[in-house]
């Protein structure tokens, strides 16, 4: 079934990490409203550039503020509709098979020592949001310098998680949401919220959207059903 804006269903561009949660939300939305919402999941960067190139998206849910800002600067989103929808947290994980001991994440904690001759898996701190948050946290905690050469910068959080799950890396920094769903890894510590900029998933309606359902869907994202779905995946739903 073609899911273009033309046939009346709503097209949501969403960061790929939201897939499970948003699929559930969309199902609930369809049930509640009798209307259809279709989501296109890809990297926030790709989606943002596509919207800039005229993609027929009605809403954009980004995995970080930067790409939303990118669109805002080009006046491609309605500023009034923009809000921060979800929050997430960073955790330190280790392969469950290693039966790892909890790690107290505090300034100067002995991460380098924990790594031994292994690498720390995390999303690429140069470009991927999760990596940037992770790097910021480690810097704030004063351990970045000791592990900077020992990073395994993955394409995204999922890839970093995979490295830990497979035992390739003894530790990794990932989102709580991803860690919770992966039985092969154990969360050995959580990064204090204050150690990095807030992890936010902003949402906005695009300027190009002509779909009257956009506002209704935006509202539905904050409905109880939606909240439940998001929380089930480990997200924090922001007010």
């Amino acid at each position, binding site marked *: *079934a*073609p*899911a*273009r804006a033309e046939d009346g269903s709503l*097209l949501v*561009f969403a960061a*790929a*990490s*939201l*897939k*499970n949660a948003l699929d559930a939300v969309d199902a609930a939305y369809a049930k509640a409203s009798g209307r259809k919402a*279709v*989501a*296109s*999941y*890809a990297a926030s960067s*790709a*989606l943002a*550039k*596509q919207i800039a*190139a*005229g*993609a*027929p*998206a009605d809403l954009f849910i980004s995995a970080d503020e930067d790409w939303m800002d990118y669109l805002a600067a080009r006046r491609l989103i309605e500023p009034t509709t923009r809000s921060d929808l979800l929050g997430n947290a960073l955790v330190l994980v280790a392969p469950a098979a290693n039966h790892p001991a909890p790690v107290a994440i505090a300034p100067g904690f002995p991460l380098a020592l924990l790594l031994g001759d292994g690498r720390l898996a995390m999303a690429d701190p140069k470009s991927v949001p999760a990596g940037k948050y992770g790097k910021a946290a480690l810097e704030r905690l004063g351990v970045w310098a000791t592990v900077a050469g020992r990073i395994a910068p993955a394409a*995204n959080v*999922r890839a970093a998680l995979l490295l830990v799950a497979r035992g390739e890396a003894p530790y990794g920094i990932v989102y709580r*949401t*991803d860690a*919770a*769903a*992966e039985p092969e890894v154990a969360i050995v510590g959580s990064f204090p919220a204050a150690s990095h900029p807030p992890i936010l998933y902003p949402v906005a309606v695009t300027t190009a959207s002509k779909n009257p359902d956009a506002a209704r869907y935006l509202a539905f994202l904050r409905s109880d059903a939606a909240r439940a779905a998001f929380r089930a*995946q*480990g997200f924090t739903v922001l007010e």
Partner: protein
Amino acid sequence: MTLALTPEELDAIRLSLRVALWAMACSLPPAVLVALVLARGRFWGKALLDGIVHLPLVLPPVVTGYLLLLLFGRQGPLGRFFAEAFGLVFAFRWTGAALAAAIMGFPLMVRAIRLSLEAVDRRLEAAAATLGAGALGVFATVTLPLMLPGIIAGLILSFARSFGEFGATITFVSNIPGETETLPLAIYAFTQAPGGDPMALRLTLVSVAVSMSALLAAELLARRLARKLAPA
């Protein structure tokens, strides 16, 4: 997880097949042309053309996808031209996915065809000319049949490549279910979601099964042809 395919999965399979088949079919004529020009032509800038043909192979698919987005997007110059001239829209349509797949498979197809073309015995073409066949006649009756193995190989490569294309497609036409969400994109989406791995694996197996069947059919066809073309 049941064994029966869900409607969404069926959609993705159907879409993947459609995209791969169109990509394969539409790139054949230009690929033959380019192979001819590269194998036989002598002109300034031939090396350049050769280089350009290889670009989709050399560039990260994301870059190719992004370039496609810039050129064939709604606001892109070529995108506008095709939309206005032929009513053909690529942006965020399955046609765009086919375009991306065709471009990514193009160098493979050209190379296979060219390889076969270069193996064609030109003395047979000369013989055809003495029998009255002009350039086109020679091509249709001698050259083309003799380079069939390369064409088939090219089609297979293009099809397989299209079937697995991911980076350029998702960058160019996004990942819209039912429209541009081919199997690799669907698999990707699952791998990106917490707990999506089993679904991704399942889809991967489906993808392997479908593409292997297609390959097998093509291989059989090729083997038949090979028998026909045993040298004199």
